[in-house]
């Protein structure tokens, strides 16, 4: 092949690859460009009670920096995020391994195992609300019949975050497991065979071989969970609405309430954009990690 022909082939290939991602890119830009611009515009305005908007520059953002509720919301968001993510990753990998090794498990049972995340989060929230009700729920009934002290669950300012994290973990661990299971299944069996011949213990095989090979999948799961967890919404919207007090008032819940309950669209826009920036930063960071662990 001549040099010119090679360059031509490369150009053609580059073009083709660009064409492959073009629909996704164009579609996304078409869908989000206007909302983002519009929200930025809204965030720079204040809407007075007479319905007239006035340009206020960055006033909404300086208000945000001075707003104790914002900083509290940030803390709640991060606490809930870290707690839920760690639980879900650890349990998700565990569940994936259990399912992976249970090869004789009928398919239908297998799909039941991953069913919780198929339940609409709003429905899961309602269901847990009933189960965890301190007076009416089955959870305390079970605790008491086991001779354990009852808990106030979602109604305790101390326990509300762990409880919400547990609900979310119940629902989303199977999702992480499903992604990891996909990764496990694409691992070449030859590595296991090699390990078996070496006589490596099950734990060592996992630690030295499976886990490193699974890292790209785990990072993917981390990214997908992160974008949802940092915007924690549904379950709190249903169960506590940010309470008791403001103990579970995540940034997303706070922004929503400012906009749709208190009708302050300008400040809500500033809050939502700030949250978006936080999530964006997290994704960029994890994406670097993805590049680092790819194999």
């Amino acid at each position, binding site marked *: 092949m001549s040099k010119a022909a090679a360059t031509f082939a490369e150009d053609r290939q580059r073009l*083709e*690859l660009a*064409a*492959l*991602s073009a*629909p*996704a*890119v164009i579609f*996304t830009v078409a*869908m989000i460009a206007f*909302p983002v611009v519009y*929200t930025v515009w*809204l965030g720079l305005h204040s809407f007075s009670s007479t319905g007239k908007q006035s340009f206020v520059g960055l006033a909404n953002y300086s208000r945000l920096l001075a707003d104790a509720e914002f900083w509290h919301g940030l803390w709640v968001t991060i606490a809930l995020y870290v707690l839920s993510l760690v639980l879900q990753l650890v349990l998700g990998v565990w569940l994936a391994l*259990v399912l992976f090794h*249970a090869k004789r498990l009928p*398919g*239908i049972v*297998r799909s*039941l*195992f*991953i*069913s*919780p995340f*198929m*339940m*609409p*989060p*709003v*429905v899961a929230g*309602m*269901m847990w609300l009933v189960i965890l009700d301190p007076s*009416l729920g089955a959870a305390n009934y079970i605790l008491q019949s086991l001779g354990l002290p009852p808990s106030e669950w979602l109604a305790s300012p101390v326990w509300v975050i762990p409880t919400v994290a547990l609900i979310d973990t*119940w629902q989303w661990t*199977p999702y992480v497991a*499903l*992604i990891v*299971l*996909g*990764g496990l*299944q*694409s691992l*070449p*069996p*030859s590595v296991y065979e090699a390990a078996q011949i070496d006589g490596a213990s099950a734990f060592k095989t996992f630690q030295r071989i499976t886990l490193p090979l699974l890292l790209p999948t785990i990072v*993917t799961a981390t*990214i*997908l969970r992160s*974008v*949802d967890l940092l915007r924690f919404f549904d379950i709190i919207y249903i169960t506590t609405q940010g309470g008791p007090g403001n103990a579970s008032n995540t940034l*997303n819940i706070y922004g*929503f309430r400012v906009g749709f309950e208190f009708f302050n669209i300008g400040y809500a*826009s500033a809050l*939502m*954009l700030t949250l978006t920036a936080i*999530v*964006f930063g997290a994704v*960029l960071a994890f*994406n670097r990690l993805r*590049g680092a662990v*790819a194999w």
Partner: protein
Amino acid sequence: MTDAPITDAWIRRLNLLQLVVAGIIVLTPTLWMVLSSLKPSFEVTAYPPTLIFAPTLENYAQLTKTTPFLSYAINSLIVTIGSTALGLLFGIPAAFAVSWTRISWPAILTLAARMAPGTLFLLPWYVMFRQVGMIGSYTALILSHAVITLPIVIWVLLPSFDGIPRSVFEAAQVDGCSVTRILWRIALPLVASGVAVASILAFVFSWNYFLFALVLSNGDSKTLIAAAFNFIGEGSTQWGALMAAATLIALPPLILAALVQRWLVSGLTLGAVKG
């Protein structure tokens, strides 16, 4: 090596134990929900919780009587299938291109739509779709839900495509295959299990998402999940009907998962190529 069989049996037993534990934790709440849907409405919140009761289908009857449940379900199906298909159509080539070039910004860009709180989109999209007269149309809902499904498809498929050895593609290129041809003929069959997983996830996320339908649909095109709220209002709380609705809503994704179960495990064959 001599004690390997013993260890094996031990591991198998341990695995079974873990499976049972996981099963109890995962399934009990769901089972409780299904049981609740068969109780008379007021008994759902009875204390102590009743395990033995006369099962009734009255909650399910109530559903079909008080809401156009079936037509909401059809709306949901149209929107979900449409947005999942769109997500796959745009997402598969994009994931492949990103994996091939290692240029990840398109993948991040599509995820950007999921980085913003859903509420951020409500007003702008309403304004946008209203301009073109699409409020209440399936198209508006499908497009908005595709914003959810697209990044799922891309990000779930990325590791799968990453997992295919470059040598496979290089061999095909030598044979004169174009990139597009490599994608559809060679790469895609290899990531079939990934596509199955991506489809289920996209379907589930789209099926369960209620926020966009709240403003982009109106009476006629309302989705099932947006209608599920109707059972917990002041003066009209019906726990039984809610649980029945929840059970029925969770059914389609479950059925889908059972249907594509075969592909969920077929990824095992992939190893043959990888070696």
